């Protein structure tokens, strides 16, 4: 897997970083079970996410990975189990509440706002932090204007960070796939989340694009110390960039541990790695 090879050096650097920086549990998923009208999507799933770590959730299609993310950010409401986020316990909450509590995510099929420019898309990520009332905006005076400028400035840093200066004002609909993925990442970052959920950030990318995306993910984790939970199919990438891996299969948790530990786990090998990938 060429991506892996190219990544190793970056990886060592960041590995060192993590060793220093991984903290204690910020999000704890406990005995989550979810079903849609009888169809079981998740069965009694539990795992912890620690501060500053990159946690990968892997598993064959239909293993319930996306559902897991949807539960974490409140889009699905599990029938059983609870989620403890930053010490606060909750069974279910509306997605926008989750967002306001610092959980951001990107989507498997890009979910950008097609009608808006890349910049505006990223700016929407700041909306939760923008306070000026409607009247102030209508007049666009003092505080409202200043607020806009400050947030624009912040977003420009993200744009610079993700190297999308050139497409800043292009409507996202016109951007190539890889770029859209970056913009989406940017939108999530704009919210300065403490947990970032990435749903197959590299799906459908070519090798270079994957490399870039890996670099960005690691840089984000380094520069901002953002905790990351990501779903990814490319085992090479997963083993490479993640500190811990949770393996799901048919809605059940098979394993949970360091990449090497998981690689060694017989159950996983049978259920997953055995499957051609």
């Amino acid at each position, binding site marked *: 897997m060429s991506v892996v090879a190219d990544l190793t050096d970056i990886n060592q650097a*960041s590995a*060192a970083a993590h060793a220093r920086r991984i903290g204690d549990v910020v999000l704890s998923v406990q005995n989550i079970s979810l079903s849609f009208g009888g169809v079981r999507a998740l069965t009694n799933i539990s795992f912890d996410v620690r501060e500053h770590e990159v946690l990968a959730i892997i598993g064959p299609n239909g293993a319930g990975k996306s559902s897991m993310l949807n539960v974490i950010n409140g889009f699905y409401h599990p029938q059983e189990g609870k989620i403890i986020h930053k010490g606060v316990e909750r069974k279910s909450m509306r997605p926008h509440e989750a967002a306001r509590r610092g959980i951001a995510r990107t989507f498997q099929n890009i979910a950008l706002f097609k009608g808006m420019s890349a910049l505006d898309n990223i700016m929407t990520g700041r909306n939760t932090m923008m306070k000026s009332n409607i009247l102030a905006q209508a007049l666009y005076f003092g505080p409202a204007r200043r607020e806009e400028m400050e947030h624009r400035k912040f977003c*420009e*840093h993200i*744009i*610079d960070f993700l190297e999308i*200066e050139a497409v800043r004002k292009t409507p996202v609909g016109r951007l190539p796939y890889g770029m859209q993925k970056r913009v989406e990442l940017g939108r999530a970052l704009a919210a300065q989340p403490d947990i970032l959920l990435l749903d197959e950030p590299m799906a459908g990318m070519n090798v270079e694009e994957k490399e870039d995306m890996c670099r960005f993910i690691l*840089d984000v984790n*380094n*520069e901002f110390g953002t905790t990351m939970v990501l779903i990814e199919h490319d085992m090479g990438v997963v083993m490479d960039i993640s500190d811990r891996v949770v393996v799901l299969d048919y809605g059940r948790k098979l394993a949970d541990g360091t990449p090497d530990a998981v690689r060694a786990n017989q159950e996983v090998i049978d259920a997953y790695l055995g499957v051609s990938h």
Partner: protein
Amino acid sequence: MAGLTTTRAMDTLPKLLKHHAQVRPNHPAMREKDYGIWQSWSWSQVHDEIMAFAAGLSALGFKRGDTLAIVGDNRPQLYWAMAAAQTLGGTPIPVYQDSVAKEMAFVLQHAEVRFAVVENQEQVDKLIEIMPDCPALKTLVYKDPRGLRDYAMDFLHAYTEVQDTGREFIKAHPGFLDAEIAKGTGSDLGVMLYTSGTTGQPKGVMLSFDNILITARNNAEMEGLGPDEDVLAYLPMAWVGDNIFSMGQAYVCGFTVNCAESGETVLTDMRELGPTYFFAPPRIYENILTTVMIRMEDAASWKRSMFKYFMDVAKRVGTRILDGKPVSGMDRLKYAIGNVLVYAPLKNVLGFSRIRLAYTAGEAIGPEIFSFYRSLGMNIKQIYGSTEASVFICVQPNGEVYADTVGKPAPEVEIRLADNGEVQFKSPGVFQAYFKEPQKTAEEKTDDGWVHTGDAGIFDENGHLKIIDRAKDVGHLNNGAMFPPKYVENKLKFFPYIKEAVAFGNERESVACFINIDIEAVGNWAERKGLAYSGFQDLAARPEVYDLILECVNQVNDDLAVHPMLSGCQIHRFLILHKELDADDGELTRTRKVRRRFIADRYADQINALYDGRDSVYVSTEVTFEDGRKGTVSADLRIRDAKVHKVAEPLRKAS
């Protein structure tokens, strides 16, 4: 320029910096397209930034006489670092950031660089890699912390943190920097630039403040540059031009230097900024022109024809109007309309709207490209210069701009032509020496300060210098007259019908030449003429084609005859080759330069035929076809005499 005389007193860049910080504190000194807008720094801000960094450097142990390497794209912080080094009496050495580690290692070693300021992680990695070879190098400062978070080495410092310590340092030692600046004099070493000579290792050209500032000021006064210019800094900082335009002249005039967002965005940034003073090598102008033509191809037909019509108008009168020559009212009206419909919008889209002065130099620029921009009303001029001269040797004065000259000697520049035709100059800009290379210095520069350019040139009747060839390639006819083959060949090649030409004459009675027709151009011509032909060889042999080429040759002779020094080089006889000169056959270099010696052997008989009066000669050459097969082509080549003017009575310049 009254504006500039005030700066005469200041003989170093740091002194000029203080001057502008006082005289025009709020005038923008630098801009950089970053985070989506043009971040701006006024002169007083720039002054403070530089002072802070200088202080920080000295806190890190940078001392008078130290050297500071600069590696990276054009970034304000890097320019400031140069000024900071100069403030402390040290010497900045900008390095080509794209040069491979080995070259870079050589430079840093040779210049005994102790400090380096680099742009980002990429350069940091590169320098760390070569550090073992550069024992002197002890301190690295990086501008962009991205990705360097985990680099623990203690010789690494962030630009901003250096500035912070600097600000502390200034508090602790007020007046220290002013004292340092006061110590500086014009004779101090201002900057050291490594030029990768065609042969051997790069040489460190040492330029004093006087070299830079006097040259910069002379040119600025000649062109009337003021503090309100905007230049776009996009050419490598290690190149002498950038030092003169973005440092020397910026500090002399106090105008604004603008840094592009990145290499890819130069053109868009250019369009946004609309510089007033611009330099670019010919190929850039050429690329822009090509893209213009390509983009126009896709335009609606009515638009295309409008474009074509007005471009013709411009070609006819644009340049004359620009040079203030008389033009009929009707044409002026047409030009005005064209300006509204085509020229102004075009310049706007290209970002040339505000240009008052544009320079080009390097290799010769194609006359049609040159006149295209001038006809749009853009004052583009050629200059002739070198690193050793702090750029300016010759400049085309306003109103006297010709595509085929490099202009008159720049102010305070003396030029003499050696008997082999080599151009030699003497000027305030003449470099001090090559660093640690006394004998190389001696080769290039006489004790009384004349510098060899290695170019052969002549002065035309308007006192403009023409560069005709590399001096070493210039030969002599038996009558002793100078014979620059490339010059003759280039003159021939300016005709679309002639693709290649090889001129002979060194140690011979007269000049004669081989000619390669351009199959495209001549082919079209033949079709228009209704002339049927079976292929290259057939077409090349046609008498009509010979007539066509003969006209070209005669015109060249007319031109040459005008000039006393070159009239001897008129082409007496020529033949048209039966095949294209080809790199695969070893007749050209891969860069399509004629390999004279090879051709001399291979076509010995044909060359003799040119001189022994035969009117045709048999030739049979081995050729390599596209698919690599070898074969031979043979033919009888006719030889024609050209019309030659008596050298005795040179006639008026034709046209």
